[in-house]
């Protein structure tokens, strides 16, 4: 559905996106993470044929973004970073206007508008001017606009920003539903929990380059190392020497707890429990230390900063 190869974009002397390669299939969600100015919006704009890539190529819904831009734009639904709503227009009229632009028949427009407004809880506000809407309502209306023509590809820039938790949940549920309809979805977000919940793939972008890409589990393993486990003990450890079985590496210890890493938890964890009991430390609990996308993200950013600094110092030398 979405395929990019070495996609780059330069503005005069500034490189906004550099050699980005992505692949998002039907029914998949890709979360594009990165700090402000990393190149997420520029990537989305190239994928929606709004900006022309300086080099590389991209196909969206089977169309080339450079040579078939009109077809690409007809196939994507874009939720822009700024809602871009007309404040003096009533919500229904606004969606009808976009329905006409997407060449939907009057009947189809009416049906889609009512169905989407109902889905997002805005059906009572169809005749209200957009200017009277709250931030969250505006965001939902903008999302309804992006979905109006039922596009096979969705590019969502910050879909739940400025939303209250209830509305954000509503939108996340909507995205879950949309994925099940076999769409390819790209989400740019700063909300890492949301990305972890929604995305099959994560791509972290920094200074226009993809610095990490894969599933959340792959990234955790790659960037944070093997999974870590914490064992809570029934008695104090004091300064007793601990012997852990082969395959378990002690990473930390406290008064009545230890943490260890292992590549083979299935075999090593029972052995650790047994060893601790045999050494006179009854085990209360053993559980995996929670690792979230935030740690992955921060680790990726930190590693990239170190690389950049090393490259820069190498150049000076």
């Amino acid at each position: 559905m979405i395929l990019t190869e070495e996609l780059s974009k330069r503005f005069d002397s500034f490189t906004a996106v550099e050699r980005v390669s992505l692949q998002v299939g039907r029914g998949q969600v890709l979360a594009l993470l990165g700090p402000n100015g990393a190149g997420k919006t520029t990537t989305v704009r190239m994928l929606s044929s709004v900006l022309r890539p300086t080099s590389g190529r991209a196909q969206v819904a089977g169309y080339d973004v450079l040579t078939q831009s009109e077809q690409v734009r007809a196939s994507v639904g874009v939720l822009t970073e700024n809602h871009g709503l007309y404040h003096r227009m009533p919500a229904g009229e606004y969606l009808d206007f976009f329905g006409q632009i997407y060449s939907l028949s009057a009947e189809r427009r009416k049906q889609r508008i009512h169905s989407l407004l109902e889905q997002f809880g805005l059906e009572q506000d169809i005749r209200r001017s957009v200017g009277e809407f709250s931030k969250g309502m505006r965001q939902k209306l903008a999302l309804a606009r992006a979905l109006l023509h039922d596009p096979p590809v969705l590019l969502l820039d910050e879909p739940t920003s400025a939303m209250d938790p209830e509305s954000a949940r509503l939108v996340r549920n909507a995205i879950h539903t949309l994925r099940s309809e076999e769409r390819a979805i790209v989400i740019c977000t700063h909300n890492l929990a949301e990305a972890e919940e929604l995305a099959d793939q994560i791509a972290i972008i920094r200074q226009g380059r993809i610095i990490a890409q894969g599933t959340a589990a792959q990234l955790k393993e790659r960037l944070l190392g093997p999974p870590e486990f914490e064992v809570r003990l029934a008695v104090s450890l004091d300064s007793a020497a601990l012997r852990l079985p082969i395959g378990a590496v002690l990473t930390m210890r406290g008064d009545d707890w230890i943490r260890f890493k292992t590549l083979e938890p299935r075999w090593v964890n029972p052995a650790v429990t047994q060893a601790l009991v045999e050494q006179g430390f009854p085990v209360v609990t053993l559980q995996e230390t929670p690792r979230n996308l935030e740690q992955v993200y921060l680790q990726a950013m930190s590693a990239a900063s170190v690389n950049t600094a090393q490259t820069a110092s190498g150049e000076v030398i």
Partner: protein
Amino acid sequence: MTEHVAAAPQSQARLSFWRNLQLMLVITRREIRDQLRDWRIILPVITLTLIFPALMNFTAKQAVDFVQRYNAPVIGERLVPFLLMIVGFFPISVSLVIALESFVGEKERRSIEPLLCSPLSDAQLYLGKLLAALTPPLLASYLGIGVYLIGVYTQVEWRPSPTLLAQIYLLSTVQAVVMVSGAIVASTQTTSVRAANLLASFIIIPMAFLIQGEAMVMFWANYSVLWWAILGQVLIAGLLIRTGLAYFNREELLGREIDILNLGWMWGVFRRSFTSGQRSLWGWYRRGVLYDLVELRSALLVTLIALLMGIYAGVQAAQQFPMPPEIIPAGRLTGNFYLELQKLGFISPLGAGLIWLQNLRVLALATFLGMFTFGVLGLLLMMLPIGMIAYITVNVAAAGFSPVTFLLALVAPHGVVEIPAILIGGAAILNLGATLTRPAQGKTLGEAFLQGAARWARIMLGVVLPLFLLAALLEVFITPRVAQILLSGL
């Protein structure tokens, strides 16, 4: 069967045309509806449509009554049509504000982005918005003219001729198109309404001069001149629309987020383009200058036609406004002619330098004027010396001297170099002015202009200035000698 095959693309083209028009009108309708919801637009439009014409009626009536008391009805007669033009113009002045709001305002509020993500083409968006910015002010203008005419007929029984009425309607229309299309060009180069308003001075100031000129025509009552004003503005509107279409595109609209003057980047683009990547002078001439001259062929042809028109205009002027034969100097070229020039210090390197500097000044002025007029005024300036030569030659012939001898004696020795320099210089200026009207091809307006300026500088430094220098040397050291030999025997 063949007919069916042939008809299919035609009907497809028709369908595509209607589809384009339909989508364009979707934009127009929304924009107009939006304008009608904005009291800041509605109030001035209503005032200028209904109240202002009534005020002008009152003014016309008072003025006519006043001047009749002093037996000077001609002032009143001229004032009434002048006010008709003003009544038509005032409502369309709002179109400038609407256009800036519609183009750069949408860009600033980011409401244009969802439109840019839609399947609409750049041209559909551009034309839809252009039409929306024009329609309400023009309707107001037409209505205002109607209100004024009814009032003025009721009060002083004045009716314009159908031609004058058509001229006023056309004039109002093209003025609105020029202002709106100019505002769009300004809008494409800015990211805020504030900056666009500042750039709009480049539209307001020439329009103010134009209105003053048209006012003079209205008081002069030589209404046929209005056709030229209409034609000129149609051409300018055409060029502005072409420029707008070239630069109102997604890349240009979203590719720049802030208006920064990046001098380093500007110099880099200019330098790279100027040197054409060449390190030696020979390589620069071969790969840069010669290539430019080949690329200039269309501009050279247009300039050549313009110079021929200059000759025609000179000939016409000589027939209409002949010089008195006694001031034709050809007969006075005696043996002292060369000595007199020497005494004046003309025949010296300084004399040649002064001629060269004068030519450079004209070139600089023509370039400056050409940059703001798509090359047109620059070209007109370059036509001037050629027209003057033609004018003098015809007068010399009318005074009984041989025009061929005159041309061979006073023009040809240096003209053989100077005229090609004028031709190439004029083409370079036209090319630079026309840079803004060409499709962007992935470049920003600034980038395209800098590259155009580099090409202009290359031609000027590589060809035109050396030719002018050579011409100046010939004019000082050779032409007077040739002139004395050929003309002293006349």
